[in-house]
């Protein structure tokens, strides 16, 4: 565990330069993925998960650009910056060239599975043809060999009659079957890391379950690492080893999966957990998170979650917390970016609660919740009620 991880991301910053301003889609996130691990990247849509995961392959679309941070994969620099003699930030010399990224990293080292299996396959080529092309390209096999590998892999992911299905077109496959094809595609290139970008979101629940079981099984067999991007904590609980929770371009909590679920340290994660049904808790009603996520183009001051946070105090508006180690679990750090923890020491406990912060925002968003839930309830959290003044 202590050796260099497979992938290390430090302070990654990706921005979109639009007419209306700079969107800080990914704003200084750090995490790592070790060999054979499934790491979750969780958040609402718009939190920057997909941009973050695409940044790993340097596939950010215009007008987006990786502007800072470092990504190291197996000792090679995917992204790296340094300060030039003129004081300008520039790309480091050891950073892989575009050509190297394309030929050495994409596909054969890091493969992806996209969210929408309906759209991800090209409608005018056969499924087999597409598989074969990618396998040929990434493993340097001949056409015939690639076809054999493709058919074997189709069988491996549980597609019946793979020889015949190989010749068929995507529209002849169901959604679940197409997602299996995409999984086969990813595994067949024999990468060390697979980025799964909401791979089950577009599928119905029973198919989702099958796909997750399949991935679990294949992951155990091949030992491939996964970065599992999702908004669904239920899926995370089922499959991931460690979890990163993203909110508005930042990682707000980072912990091993059990730790995250049973000793939640960030109010946002708490809110996320309360919004899903859980077998280990019986509640009368599921709580929706209040308000909507603000735009990354103009994030709130201080802690970005404070307008929606039930625990928000005056200090939260002022102090912007980075994720800090707040606890340990079996030697693994548990990081959270919330000033209510003692390590931040910015006077949270003395700070007055924000009057109606969450309520105001929710009203602006036009929500129509039960009236009694409007008032924030700072007394209910575990940091105790001393904050009342």
């Amino acid at each position, binding site marked *: 565990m202590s050796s260099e991880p497979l992938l290390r991301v430090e302070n990654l910053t990706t921005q979109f330069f639009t007419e209306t301003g700079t969107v800080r889609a990914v704003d200084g996130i750090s995490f790592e993925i070790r060999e054979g691990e499934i790491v979750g990247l969780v958040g609402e849509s718009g939190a920057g998960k997909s941009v973050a995961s695409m940044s790993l392959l340097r596939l950010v679309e215009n007008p987006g650009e990786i502007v800072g941070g470092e990504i190291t994969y197996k000792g090679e620099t995917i992204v790296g910056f340094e300060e030039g003699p003129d004081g300008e930030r520039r790309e480091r010399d050891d950073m892989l060239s575009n050509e190297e990224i394309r*030929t050495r990293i994409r596909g054969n080292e890091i*493969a992806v599975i996209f969210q929408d299996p309906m759209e991800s396959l*090209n*409608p005018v080529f056969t499924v087999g043809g597409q598989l074969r092309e990618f396998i040929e390209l990434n493993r340097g096999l001949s056409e015939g060999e690639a076809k054999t590998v493709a058919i074997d892999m189709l069988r491996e992911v549980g597609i019946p009659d793979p020889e015949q299905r190989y010749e068929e077109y995507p*529209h002849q496959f169901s959604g679940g079957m197409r997602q299996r094809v995409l999984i086969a595609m990813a595994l067949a290139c024999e990468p060390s890391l697979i980025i799964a970008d909401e791979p089950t979101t577009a599928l119905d629940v029973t198919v989702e379950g099958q796909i997750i079981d399949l991935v679990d099984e294949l992951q155990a067999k091949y030992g491939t690492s996964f970065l599992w991007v999702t908004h669904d904590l239920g899926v995370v609980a089922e499959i991931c080893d460690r979890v990163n929770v993203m909110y508005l371009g930042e990682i707000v909590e980072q912990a091993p999966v059990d730790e995250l679920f049973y000793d939640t340290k960030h109010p946002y994660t708490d809110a996320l957990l309360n919004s899903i049904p859980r077998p280990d808790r019986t509640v009368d009603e599921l709580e929706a998170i209040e308000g909507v996520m603000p735009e990354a183009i103009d994030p709130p001051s201080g802690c970005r979650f404070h307008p929606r946070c039930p625990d928000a105090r005056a200090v939260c508006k002022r102090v912007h917390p980075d994720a800090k180690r707040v606890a340990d679990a079996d030697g693994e750090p548990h990081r959270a970016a919330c000033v209510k923890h003692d390590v931040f020491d910015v006077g949270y406990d003395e700070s007055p609660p924000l009057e109606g912060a969450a309520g105001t925002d929710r009203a602006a968003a036009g929500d129509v919740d039960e009236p009694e839930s409007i008032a924030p309830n700072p007394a209910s959290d575990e940091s105790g009620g001393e904050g009342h003044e």
Partner: protein
Amino acid sequence: MKLLKYTIHRLLQAIPVLIGISVITFLLANLGPGDPVSLMLQGQEHSEELIRTIERRYGLDRPLHERYVTYMAGLLRGDLGQSIHYQRPVAALMMERVGPTLLLVLSAYAFALVTAIPLGIVAANRRNEPSDHASRIAALVGVSTPSFWIGIVLILVFAVQLGWLPSSGLYYPWRPPSAYPGIDGHLELYYESARHLLLPMIALGTLQMATIMRVERTQMIESLQGEYVKLARAYGVPERKILRKHAFQVAQLPIITIVGLNLSTALGGAVLVETVFNINGMGRLFINAISTNDYQLVMGITMLLGFLFVLGVIITDISYAYVDPRVTYGERE
């Protein structure tokens, strides 16, 4: 096999349309105030009896529906009646004239496709760069300029001012070289045909080119934003291959449809371009027929052009079904 069934299905579907075309042209040609008989006798002394005789000869004395049935019966035998002005069978007249028109229209399409597709792809790939803006402006000018005026300007520049290219007429490459005095051998004939064809081809092809270019650009932009392109990129497929294979293949499908549908504009444009360049094709024959009130000939030409259009659409539909695996034969539309 499926494709054959689909072809037959599509051909059968075209029958009511062809019948419809015949009804419309028949009604238009026969209900109008233009009276072919008095036209024929223009300036001549004529008696009532002579008029009767002529009417009987062309069957003009019988009721409309009877005449239509007779006409359709003839049509099935390949007999389109007799041209009043030329005093020759309509079918034979059209056979002579359809060649140059088809040559013109097909070469215009070839010109349009060969230029428009690469330009459209370049524009899509360099979106919002100067080359994109330039090609968009060119396409805009192309769809906004009448083909006959382009022809006139081309004549003014290349024939009148520079004297490089001929301004009228056409050499038919399918005729023996001996048919043209001063032409020696097939090679020279082909060379002359090409020289004569060049300007009218550009005049007629510009509108098609501009239309196809615009569609190509939008389609490529859309296709390049597709998830499958993202996937190909993520698997390290070279950008050039993505452009030429993955994005291109999908973007071509609507082009096929456009080519078929634009055939009607192209056939109409041929009338104008043939007039400007003095090409003896269907277009000029049509204008002659109209100006001499030769209603049999007008009907024949309208039927033939309608038929050519329907045929073109069927051919493009079938090639679409052939290229796009998603089309389930017979259930399309």
